[in-house]
């Protein structure tokens, strides 16, 4: 919210510099920045047009004499059609500037006649949009006087306050001024804004007001002014509103707006003659009821919307916006001013539901001061009478069926200091309460506090602790210098495994990435290992309608990004939550943590390393990762049913599915416009975590007996799977055969074209003795025989 320093000073004079004031308000919880607000012109004075003749070389220009004082008068060429002799005008002398210094007034020749200055329009002075003609001033201004001074157009500082939702009381200059008063160690009394006097006429008016929905409207006040004249607002009012970013409309509406910005209390003005049957009823909408609001939009209402109605129809949505059937227009002469207190929850619900947020609704939903209704009404009446004339009807309507009780809170000084860790004296606390307009009675060790009606946010003792702390100054409370730890509060980090995986992968050359977890429909279908995806009911846009069900799309988009940037070779990984619907949980969803891996590129292009980035490369890295975190013996099973992959292998530990690894096919890649070759793997971290043997694995005691390595090479049909050979070899002996490795694979046309040559290295070791060659030979022979029988393998 914007507030003007000049405006604030109507309540409290301050000697603080603009930055001190901003800092002071910020320290009180009203975070703000400020800007200088100045007139866009300089050196403009009031001049009198003493002569005005048509320009001899033009059919639309005039040559005028502008008298500034007795001695000096200037020749000025003016194009405005409303210029005439005998008027007072704002006159920019030579050397004056307009538009914040961008436009400098110089002596010029216009169609052969020298012009020594410029008569200005409202727009040229930055005072309004009017450019129809030059600005004509009232006679009360004095020739030669400084235009800014005579018009009361002071320089100003505008504070932009980022107000927290609890401080509805500061949505007006009065509220902010109260905070300023704290800084200035002054106090704003009620009388400073309540004692407004204005003349009441003796006109009579029959009018009836009724509150049908007392839950939603605790108090409704109104008054009537007859015979007003709707017109443009005077410059001071326009200037005041414009300085804080409000548009000027007409004198009546501007006046109401001014009080809204001044006291923070929204009031509504109706055209009295448009209110049928001279009565108002504050009630909830009936089923199917509609209203066309001031902005011309037809709103369908529901039964919880609170309305202001005349004899038959709604004329406003209470506290939010008026109806266009009852608004002020140029022809309005009699008005009714509404000053009411509405239930904040009702206003908020309606505002949300109807999608209308106005300056009024913003204030009502943050709760307003129920005691300010009449003072606000008085103040507004006084201004309208001044600006628009007319006479007030003496009776002020004030329907207030159940008076609000005075809020009292008991405040314990010791407890407060204990809570804050401070040592604030009783006297300081009293001073603080004084500055907050909180009344108190001392009762043994506590203060019985009476909360002012404008502080709806103070309801509990702890709320007062905060008030004490903020006025005392958060930064004046010492920081404690120690912290005691309770052993029982420790909890193990259940996602520790993520850190381990990150460390392993990043040191193995993978770059970690984070991707958006919101995807579009197409992407969800691509990655759709499961169809039960989760849709957002109010997405930002169609591109982000679903929660990701896989890390695939995020990684593919990252691949595309880097491919576009000419990256040739890289590895990426991401760890994050993926989501599925699940009827058995409270939220109807379930989430699991996933690890996505991607290998991009064909081969390492280093002079000393030409590793091929192929299926085996990736499989090796996945296996290595899992081994490193304690998962051995994983198996890979080909899945030929997958649509999106040329090769796809599921990864298991026993029967537990841990994830998969695959080579996305062309069609799949083309959905992301990826051209290069890549591999992808996704592992379920939750399954991995469960698969890690929780018992600390024992380190086997050192074996001092040497092992023997034996190699055999065989020629077998290409059809034969490695895993079958491996299984067969390992099954041959379970005492001294400790392992088998494939260390060479050779396929060549020189061999039989259906055959491959495989070389295995077997490791033999006993835990009891040194092995003899003969015992190993026996097993090797057995293996060779078995391979021959089972796979028709020939030893080479």
């Amino acid at each position, binding site marked *: 919210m914007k507030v003007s320093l000049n405006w604030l000073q109507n309540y409290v004079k301050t000697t603080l510099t603009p930055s001190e004031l901003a800092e002071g308000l910020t320290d*009180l919880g009203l975070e703000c920045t400020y800007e200088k607000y100045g007139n866009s012109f300089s050196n403009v004075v009031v001049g009198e047009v003493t002569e005005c003749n048509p320009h001899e070389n033009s059919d639309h220009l005039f040559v005028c004499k502008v008298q500034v004082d007795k001695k000096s008068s200037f020749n000025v060429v003016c194009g405005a059609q409303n210029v005439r002799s005998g008027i007072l005008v704002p006159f920019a002398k030579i050397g004056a500037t307009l538009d914040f210094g961008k436009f400098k007034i110089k002596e010029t020749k216009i169609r052969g006649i020298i012009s020594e200055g410029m008569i200005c329009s409202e727009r040229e002075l930055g005072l309004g949009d009017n450019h129809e003609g030059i600005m004509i001033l009232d006679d009360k201004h004095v020739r030669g006087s400084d235009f800014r001074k005579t018009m009361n157009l002071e320089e100003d500082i505008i504070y932009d306050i980022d107000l*927290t*939702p609890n*401080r509805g009381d500061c949505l007006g200059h009065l509220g902010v001024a109260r905070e300023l008063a704290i800084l200035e160690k002054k106090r704003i009394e009620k009388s400073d804004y309540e004692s407004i006097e204005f003349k009441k006429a003796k006109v009579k008016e029959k009018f009836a007001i009724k509150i049908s929905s007392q839950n939603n409207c605790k108090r409704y006040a109104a008054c009537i002014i007859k015979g007003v004249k709707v017109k443009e607002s005077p410059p001071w009012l326009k200037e005041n509103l414009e300085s804080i970013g409000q548009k000027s409309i007409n004198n009546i509406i501007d006046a109401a707006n001014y009080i809204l910005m001044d006291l923070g209390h929204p009031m509504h003005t109706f055209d009295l003659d448009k209110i049928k049957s001279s009565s108002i009823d504050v009630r909830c909408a009936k089923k199917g009821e509609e209203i066309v609001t001031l902005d011309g939009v037809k709103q369908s209402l529901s039964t919880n919307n609170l309305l202001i109605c005349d004899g038959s129809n709604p004329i406003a949505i209470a506290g939010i916006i008026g109806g266009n059937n009852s608004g002020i227009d140029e022809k309005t002469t009699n008005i009714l001013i509404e000053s009411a207190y509405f239930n904040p929850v009702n206003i908020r619900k309606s505002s949300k539901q109807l999608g209308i947020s106005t300056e009024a609704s913003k204030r009502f939903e943050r709760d307003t001061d129920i005691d300010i209704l009449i003072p606000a009404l008085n103040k507004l009446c006084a201004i309208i009478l001044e600006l628009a004339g007319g006479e007030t009807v003496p009776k002020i309507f004030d329907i207030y069926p159940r008076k609000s009780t005075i809020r009292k809170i008991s405040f314990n000084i010791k407890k407060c200091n204990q809570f804050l860790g401070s040592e604030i004296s009783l006297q300081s606390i009293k001073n603080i309460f004084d500055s907050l307009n909180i009344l108190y009675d001392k009762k043994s060790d506590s203060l019985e506090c009476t909360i002012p009606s404008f502080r709806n946010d103070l309801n509990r003792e702890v709320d007062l602790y905060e008030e004490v702390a903020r006025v005392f100054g*958060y930064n004046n409370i010492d*920081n404690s210098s120690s912290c005691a730890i309770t052993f029982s509060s420790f909890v193990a980090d259940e996602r520790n495994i993520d850190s381990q995986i990150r*460390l392993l992968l990043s040191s193995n050359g993978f770059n*970690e990435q984070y991707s*958006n977890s919101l995807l579009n429909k197409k992407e969800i279908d691509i990655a759709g290992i499961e169809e039960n995806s989760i849709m957002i009911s109010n997405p930002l846009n169609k591109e982000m309608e679903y929660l990701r069900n896989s890390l695939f799309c995020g990684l593919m988009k990252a691949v595309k990004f880097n491919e576009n940037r000419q990256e040739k070779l890289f590895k990426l990984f991401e760890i994050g939550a993926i989501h599925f619907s699940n009827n058995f949980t409270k*939220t109807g969803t379930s989430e699991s943590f996933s690890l996505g891996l991607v290998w991009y590129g064909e081969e390492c292009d280093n002079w000393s390393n030409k590793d091929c980035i192929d299926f085996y490369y990736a499989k090796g890295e996945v296996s290595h990762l899992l081994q490193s975190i304690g998962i051995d013996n994983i198996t890979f099973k080909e899945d030929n049913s997958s649509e999106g992959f040329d090769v796809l292998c599921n990864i298991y530990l026993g029967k537990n599915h841990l994830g998969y690894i695959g080579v996305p096919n062309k069609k799949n890649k083309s959905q992301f416009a990826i051209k290069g070759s890549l591999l992808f793997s996704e592992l379920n971290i939750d399954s991995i975590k469960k698969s890690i043997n929780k018992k600390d694995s024992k380190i086997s005691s050192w074996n001092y007996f040497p092992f023997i390595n034996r190699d055999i090479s065989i020629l077998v049909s290409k059809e034969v799977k490695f895993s079958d050979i491996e299984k067969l070899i390992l099954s041959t002996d379970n005492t001294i055969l400790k392992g088998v490795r494939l260390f060479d694979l050779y396929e060549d046309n020189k061999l039989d074209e259906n055959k491959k040559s495989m070389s295995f290295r077997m490791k033999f070791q006993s835990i009891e003795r040194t092995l003899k060659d003969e015992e190993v030979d026996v097993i090797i022979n057995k293996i060779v025989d078995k391979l021959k029988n089972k796979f028709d393998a020939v030893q080479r």
Partner: protein
Amino acid sequence: MNLNDKIQAINDSFSKDKKNFKSNSIKFDDFKNKYLGRKGLLSELYPLLNSVSDSDKPECGKKINSIKNVITKEIHSLGNNLSDLSNNALNIDSSMPGTEKFSGSIHPLTKIIDEIKSIFNRIGFSTIYGPEVDTDYYNFEALNIPKDHPARDMQDTFYINKETLLRTHTSSSQIHFMEKNQPPLRIISPGRVYRNEDISVRSYCLFHQIEGLYIDKNVKFSDLKGTLDYFAKSLFGENVKTRFRPSYFPFTEPSAEMDVSCIFCKSKGCNICKQSGWIEILGCGMVDPEVFKFVDYDVDIWSGFAFGIGIERIAMLKYGVKDIRIFYNGDIQFLEQIKL
């Protein structure tokens, strides 16, 4: 060629090669093999014995053995003076690039999360987690943000349906934790949170947070200040100052924002701190008694504080990142700059 001539020739060649070897113009292995190899010069001597008369054979045999011993000894002693490394080093160009590795990296946000976790872990905060999709109750109601509270405007929320939403802060994890555990407790909860905000240089539809919660007997506002001051100094350096400003969160009372003195201009005023000398880092406050009521903690016994840190914000400050979106597009040139 008779044996004596041959021996003489080998001797001559050997002295020459010795020089060559010392001047590095012949490699050790070649040098050694030339004389001692299976087909080396010395091996050529023995067949010549056949052409010698039997009476001369012992004499000639001695000569051959003698030159063989001398040369073998000398070559071995030369060889022993070479270390394995310098032996190989003779073959390499050390300016050639080593075998390149992929440039692995940890995401900057991970790094900040880890750093903040470790700062709090040191003073006894345990790390806990909660779900990204949660109910309105955990995300709002139990945190004292009822349905029609204006504070809901502070957070634009993605909904799955009326009651289910994408969490807007990780405070929801704390409610889950409090329901299952009794105080005293000291936890931080990192994680991904979502806000229904237009994507721009400064904001994204999701971001990461670490929220902290400390509940015990007699936890004071001054404890909150001390703890978070320790945190700021640990993260940004001993010399930073902190300041606390009143703020508002429905789940804390009093509430505060913590600023640190600008680390870029040393509080002199710069673009990053908008000339204020201070940078906003986190929101915090004393846990509101209303929250305790939701989780059945006795308000008269327990008090505590909570805080929430935006990871992206810290990362942008620490790494000088101007556009938040770069955290989520997987740009390797950006990612690989972050080192362990």
